[in-house]
């Protein structure tokens, strides 16, 4: 049986989209593991029904494996789960009303569950995380310098990094990296040539846009819930 991961993020309380994705995944061949890479909550709509469903899946639901995202971090900050810190970045960028909307969108009874979520998963040689190994708000995109991407991969010691913060879907592969390092210290000179094995950073999308990853073949397939996958047969990035 083919093993696949479904990677979703940015639902922001949208239970309808979550149900649509669950419906999609039931039709998708293979043994599927569902990862929710954060931003289950947001300020736009009431998130309680979605949170309840994630915590208490229906009998025919794929079990979701959730980590926390940027919006979860904001509500934890504002609710006193991070010591004296508050969601000041959110307050400054979006205003007091958005902070209030976020607090009102999530019942307090869910906060302990959110606070217990992990920062990320490391599965096989893959890191699954909302932002990056540096920060939950780290916004990795196609335009992020390769050295920065390599740093984020190195910190987690993984070859694939699945990230959600940017909300974009992309597959960026780093290959044939080489760098000469020469260290001079009190014991003399030490030269080393370092090579980078094939590594990749994958943006999984947000909301209805999600990603399927074929663990056996390393193929990435970008999908929009309710629609046929963009390249159903082969998947995108077949040769990556």
């Amino acid at each position, binding site marked *: 049986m083919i093993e696949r991961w479904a990677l979703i993020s940015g639902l922001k309380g949208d239970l309808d989209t979550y149900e649509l994705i669950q419906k999609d995944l039931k039709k998708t061949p293979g043994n599927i593991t569902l990862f929710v890479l954060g931003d289950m909550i947001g300020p736009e709509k009431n998130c309680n029904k979605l949170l309840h469903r994630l915590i208490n899946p229906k009998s025919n639901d794929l079990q979701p494996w959730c980590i926390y995202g940027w919006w979860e971090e904001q509500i934890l900050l504002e609710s006193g789960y991070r010591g004296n810190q508050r969601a000041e970045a959110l307050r400054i960028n979006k205003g007091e009303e958005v902070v209030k909307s976020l607090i009102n969108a999530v019942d307090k009874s869910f906060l302990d569950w959110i606070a217990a979520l992990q920062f990320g998963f490391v599965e096989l040689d893959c890191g699954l995380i909302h932002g990056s190994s*540096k920060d939950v708000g780290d916004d990795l995109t*196609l335009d992020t*310098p*390769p*050295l*920065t991407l*390599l*740093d984020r991969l*190195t*910190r987690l010691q993984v070859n694939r990094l699945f990230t959600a913060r940017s909300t*974009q*879907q*992309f*597959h*960026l*592969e*780093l*290959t*044939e*990296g*080489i*760098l*000469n*390092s*020469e*260290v*001079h*210290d*009190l014991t003399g000179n*030490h030269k*080393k040539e*370092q090579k*980078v094995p094939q590594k990749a950073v994958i*943006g999984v*999308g947000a909301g209805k*846009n999600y990603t399927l990853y074929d663990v056996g073949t390393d193929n990435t397939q*970008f999908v929009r819930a309710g629609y046929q996958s*963009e*390249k159903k047969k082969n998947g*995108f*990035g077949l040769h*990556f």
Partner: protein
Amino acid sequence: MNQAVISCLHANLPAVEAVLKDIELQGITNITCLGDLVGYGPQPNEVIELIKEKKIATCQGCWDEDVVDGLDACDCSYPSQIAERRGHFAHQWTTEKLTKENKDFLANLPYSIRKDECLFVHGSPNSQHEYLLPDMDAFAALERVENAKAEILFCGHTHQPYIRELANGSISVKVKNSGSKDIQKKEMNLPMRRIVNAGSVGEPRHGGTKATYVVYNDITNDVKIREVEYDIELTCKAIINAGLPPIFAWRLKNGFEFAERAEDASHFCER
């Protein structure tokens, strides 16, 4: 023109005086200090007063930050609970001894100093607590310099002096996004950059007993590691008389201090 870079003075007044004398004998007047004026050693106020008197440009080290903020050093830098207890004791002792004026001085030190293409920091551009060890992943090391928009990064914190040149790098990037069927490929040449670690004046961890610092010539780009002898006995006696852990004196006298050395070159403090 030659300039000297010193780091990790750690309240060791005889070592600081000897290094400043060595710098003076070379006719160097441009000195930059990478922090950790205090901690471990017995003369924190005296060392700060000397740095102030000489008007040496200084950035804040991890001990300077922790003493000011009332924090103990993050336990990630200690390999054992005994080492951690010693560190915490030294923090408490230093906090009690420092004058208010000197605490204010430490509190107002900048995190980094930039001079043309050179950036001066204590640990790394990311954090005063991050160790840039000489065997750190080369690409990650290059990222630290490049993202800081510097050509030469001067750091301390590890107490091991070294000069690391990262050169002749390249990488291929293949990109595919959901909006396109094409795969874009591009080759990128990576810039040549250097990391210079100034070692430690007051608590060397390079396997010898001498204080270390570096001299950088900004015309020839040449960097030299200097080793300076100082009166170790004097510092050791002051450590014992101050009631600080005797192991602080023992390791200075014996010239090795592996007990509290961070082993993980890519470690990043999460505090």
